[in-house]
């Protein structure tokens, strides 16, 4: 009997012992240099007709958006996420600097903001627009014509013992983009490399539109029976300050807007046919704000032309039946061929007032 128990425990413990070795541990490996975390599908395909002057580029490299003449001693890195070009400079005595080229859509004050960020990187205080204007110099920037040059140095930032203490940057507008070309690194090395940097900027040839960052579309499983409903949603132009949320039941999309302690939500849904008709829908919205149903000659509704069809709009104030707080709602019923789309902006009055026009433009952008 004892022999039986011993045999049994020996078999089971050996199974368990073998089974307990699979815990994930810290791993160390050496790999050939590559871009970090880059995902296929974002950067676009290689433009085989471009005749670019990259060095030993691999087949998988993304398309060049810009061409250049590579200064001596600069080592090209793989483009990485937002950078369309990246270079490393290492001096014989181990000092390092890096050059990056980043395109961004032109926007309000983006140049001044970027330059102030660069200043912060070298430990300098941000400057106002007038002071920044005094800092800039015009330089030649390839096919963009000219660009604004900024140079700054300061104390080394936290987390670095001797690098990143000087930045030389050029901001050049081309087409509808602003190109940021920046050299950052050890003070003396960046100063030494300045002539090379200016020559590099002068050689830039912006050959194609800048990459548009794709929206975060989810991959589709090959097990799915149908293309997901979200793939059929209109391509709305979503304002930058709207935060996309996971839509709730019956909703197709949902966004949250928060500004200085006040907030509002945008929701989108669609139903077949007229979904009860204009009067019923307006009464439903009014009910959500604790208002009586829409009566004859109700003036809270108006109409607006959207995508060649007449949509109805309401702009009402009341008390949100869910939260019990004062709220304002702007809602639209947009008739399509055999269905009606409903767009609703609901929240604190200050936010709704500020976002109303953007909301209407958002709806129009779909059709």
């Amino acid at each position, binding site marked *: 009997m004892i022999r039986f128990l011993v045999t049994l425990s020996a078999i089971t413990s050996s199974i368990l012992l073998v089974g307990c070795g699979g815990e994930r541990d810290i791993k160390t490996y050496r790999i050939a240099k590559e871009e*970090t975390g880059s995902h296929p599908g974002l950067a676009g395909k290689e433009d085989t007709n471009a005749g670019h002057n990259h060095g030993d580029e691999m087949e998988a490299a993304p398309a060049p958006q810009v061409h250049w003449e590579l200064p001596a001693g600069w080592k090209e890195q793989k483009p990485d996420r937002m950078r369309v070009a990246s270079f490393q400079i290492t001096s014989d005595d181990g000092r390092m600097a890096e050059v990056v080229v980043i395109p961004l859509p032109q926007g309000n004050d983006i140049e001044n903001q970027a330059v102030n960020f660069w200043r912060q990187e070298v430990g300098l205080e941000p400057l106002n627009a007038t002071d920044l204007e005094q800092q800039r110099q015009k330089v030649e920037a390839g096919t963009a014509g000219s660009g604004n040059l900024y140079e700054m140095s300061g104390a080394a930032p936290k987390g670095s013992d001797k*690098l990143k203490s000087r930045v030389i940057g050029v901001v050049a507008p081309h087409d509808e983009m602003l190109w940021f070309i920046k050299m950052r690194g050890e003070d003396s090395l960046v100063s030494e490399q300045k002539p090379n940097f200016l020559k590099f900027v002068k050689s830039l040839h912006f050959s194609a539109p800048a990459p548009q960052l794709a929206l975060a579309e989810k*991959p589709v499983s090959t097990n799915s029976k149908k293309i997901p409903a979200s793939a059929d949603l209109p391509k709305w132009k979503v304002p930058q300050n709207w935060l996309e949320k996971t839509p709730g039941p019956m909703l197709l999309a949902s966004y949250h807007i928060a500004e200085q302690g006040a907030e509002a939500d945008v929701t989108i849904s669609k139903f077949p046919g007229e979904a009860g008709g204009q009067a019923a829908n307006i009464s439903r919205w009014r009910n959500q704000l604790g208002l009586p149903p829409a009566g004859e000659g109700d003036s809270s509704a108006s109409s607006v032309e959207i995508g060649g069809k007449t949509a109805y709009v309401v702009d009402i104030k009341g008390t949100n039946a869910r939260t019990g707080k004062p709220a304002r709602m702007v809602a639209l019923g947009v008739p399509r061929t055999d269905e009606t789309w409903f767009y609703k902006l609901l929240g604190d009055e200050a936010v709704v007032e500020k976002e109303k026009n953007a909301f209407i433009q958002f709806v129009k952008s779909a059709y």
Partner: protein
Amino acid sequence: MATKIVNVLTSLRLTVLCLALALGLVFIGTLAQVKWGLYVVQHDFFGSFLVWWRPEGASWRVPVYPGGYLIGGVLLLNLIAAHLKRFELSKKKLGIFVIHAGLILLLVGQLFTQLFQVESFMAIEEGSSRNYSESARYAELAVIDKTDPKTDLVVAIPQSVLAHRKEISDKNLPFRLKVQSFYENSEPRPAKNGTVNFIQEKLATAMDDRNIPATTVEIVTDEGSKGVFPVSNWITEDKLVATVMKNFGGQLKPDFTEPPQFSYKGHMYELAMRPMRFYKDYTISLKNFTHDRYAGTDIPKNFASRVELINPEKQEDREVKIYMNNPLRYNGETYYQAGFEPGDTVTILQVVRNPSWLTPYVACTMVGAGLLIQFLSHLVKFSRRRPA
């Protein structure tokens, strides 16, 4: 006493009890998936010894049901014990012996699958190559020594280590990492200095949702701190970067995705939080991806990836077509056609490494053979007994 234990361990009642409990576990586990999703239930119900219940907001918990490991373990013990006790090398019992051995193999194989199976994904764009796959659920903090001009030395710290240790050191790192915070799921928020901060978010449970981890680590050297760095997949994965850009683009500095860097003792280091990577000794290139639909509809008819498999060590370079029910099995891994990106130029292959993938086939064959032997031996005996 020993006899009593053996009797309990080898009893058929214990087998029936285990099977009944297993049925109950599958039932409640299926219902629980509605609230907690597949992965949480898999771990808490089937991959644990006990199923715990914690009242909302309470710090204590109580076990309410035996978990999958306990039921499976006892069942396995029961089977092995019964096998050992009743083992008798005779023709008469050969069928029973083979059936039980098959069942034991099935249970052990399932345990090994649970413990050793690694699932990851490889997304490849047409015309490009990959030599690593990535986990869809787990992340790692890569500490990359970029000093060498040709190669990078990567120390990959899995998120399970970040979640459980306050301080991390490794023989390949000349410094320590103090984990100031770790969030299994997070959301990005723009910081005042134009970078991105991360706030904790509830765990994602839906099948089509995922957790985006974030951590803040301090690099501590003998000479003092090198800085405090918040890192997350939000700023390393292109699709997540696109989402951050879409929502906060105007409030962020142009190079907000730039990975944190620092230098120490003449070496340049970079930190990146990214999906856990599994490197291969070979490369897979996507030649072409096809997604056929039934005419006039969006209903998929067929998905196929034509890939080139290159293994320099084995001097292997061949084309393979991967499509539904026709995976590529190579080097202990199986590549299934699992998905694609909208636009039909990026294929997503599921990569499964399961050292015990053959055990269910062998076990089922053994059980089938055992049943056949048992029935045939009875049939032969019965037919011999019949009067002529």
